[in-house]
């Protein structure tokens, strides 16, 4: 009897805690060291297109989060059942189904935002981050680490989107989340919104500045 209890305890010790050091790293790494946008340079096109306003960026990040969690979780659960010869097609079907569901839900409940995001929700399918994480991580890992990895990567993606959108909306239209932040008196003095910030090239430049700042702080990332 006592040996059985001891064995059980041993078993529990051997079992990895939910937030072990390795698991925590799955979440924190994509925020900085292996950020999908600034380090791996994935998902750039949506980062350019929908960072004009913070609100759009947040909704887009949440949509990517939902799609990424859903699809990596499903592939991770099915990982031992998916025939390897058709795995890319299976991944694509799972991601596409998730994206269509998200798009339909947005259209039904947050119509104005879904109209602004327009085609970009549909284009989440082609977001390299999602296929990348499924192929590189969740096909070979258990559901829980896959879930953490998905949360981490979606957060890393969302972080960049929101930071870029913050500067673009503030400098480009003087607003944040749609509210006028720069008072009218500034404009009377001759302050003008920077129209260039609204256009896609400035997103690239803001991302570039972010990478510059990030690499000057995190010297690990500097290639020889």
């Amino acid at each position, binding site marked *: 009897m006592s040996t059985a209890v001891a064995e059980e305890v041993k078993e529990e010790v051997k079992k990895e805690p939910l937030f072990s050091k390795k698991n925590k790293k799955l979440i924190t790494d994509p925020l900085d060291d292996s950020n999908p946008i600034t380090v791996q340079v994935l998902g750039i096109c949506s980062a350019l297109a929908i960072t*004009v306003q913070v609100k759009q960026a947040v909704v887009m990040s949440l949509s990517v989060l939902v799609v990424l969690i859903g699809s990596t979780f499903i592939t991770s659960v099915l990982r*031992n*059942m*998916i*025939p*390897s*010869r*058709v795995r890319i*097609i*299976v991944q694509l*079907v*799972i991601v596409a*189904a998730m994206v*269509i*569901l998200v798009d*339909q*839900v947005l*259209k*039904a*409940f947050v*119509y*104005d935002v879904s109209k602004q995001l327009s085609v970009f929700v549909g284009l989440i399918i082609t977001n390299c981050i999602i296929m990348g994480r499924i192929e590189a991580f969740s096909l070979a890992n258990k559901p829980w680490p896959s879930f953490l990895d998905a949360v981490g990567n979606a957060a890393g993606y969302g972080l960049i989107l929101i930071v870029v959108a913050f500067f673009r909306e503030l400098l480009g239209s003087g607003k944040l989340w749609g509210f006028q932040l720069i008072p009218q008196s500034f404009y009377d003095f001759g302050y003008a919104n920077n*129209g260039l910030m*609204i*256009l896609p090239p400035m997103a690239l430049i803001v991302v570039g500045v972010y990478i510059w700042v990030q690499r000057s702080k995190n010297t690990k990332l500097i290639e020889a």
Partner: protein
Amino acid sequence: MDINSNKYTFIFSTVMVVVVGSLLAIAAVGLKPFQSENVKREKMQNILSSVGITVTAEEAGDKFNQYITDQIIINGNGEVKETDLKAFDVDVLKDYKSGMSNIYSANKDDEAAMRKALMSFGKGGANFPLFVYSGDDGSKKYIVPMVGKGLWGPIWGYVAINSDGNTVAGATFDHKTETPGLGAEIKEGWFSEPFIGKKLFDENGNYVSVSVVKGGAPEDDMHGVDAISGGTITSNGVSEMVYRTLKIYEPYFKSLNNSVAKVEEPEVEIPVSDSLTTDSLVVDTLNNQIN
């Protein structure tokens, strides 16, 4: 079981397609009512905003029923058409795409031929919706939906005409994919507000419409508003859309205008209307006061 065998691969793929397919079908059908409700509300919001009433999506339905008191359908000849169809249910963008744009471009300079073609368009001729707005003060405005071509895709809008059938009471425009900061500006108030007060007809009663003027319209121009610099093709698209659509409604607006004109200069057979008597009474009393 060998998960890499052909048999397993086929079974797996089949099951996956069936499961995913039915899941998406259920979601699409289940969410459809919410989605079409949103589209309807947005249309109501747009119609109301053309007469200067801004409403939230939630109250759009109530306000629409309160202010839009009548919905009329006009045929290709500009006459009121007797039909069970509701003006609200006419999808002008769909009609435009499904062949009406060809009628317009083929008969650009021949009005009679264009009207003839429109009368035989689709089932029972083309439908042109018209919304009648009745304000709190009893004023009436006629709201015309319209569709046209921008630079990259369709543009559309609503133009409201006062009850004289001549003065523009308001306008709102929108677009699908015009360039942000350039053509997309047609959506903004600074572009659509100057339409207010412009006239469709000149002093002689000839149809002129309201057009955008490159380089800015002179202030006393009753038929022009400022174009968007850098957005010439979209601006011209708006001009063309307004001109072409209102041209079809022209006979209807003229009939509104004529009924007003008839009261102003009564013929012998027509009994003097109430409004005229009151008007002349007012003039008389004014004259007396001056004397």
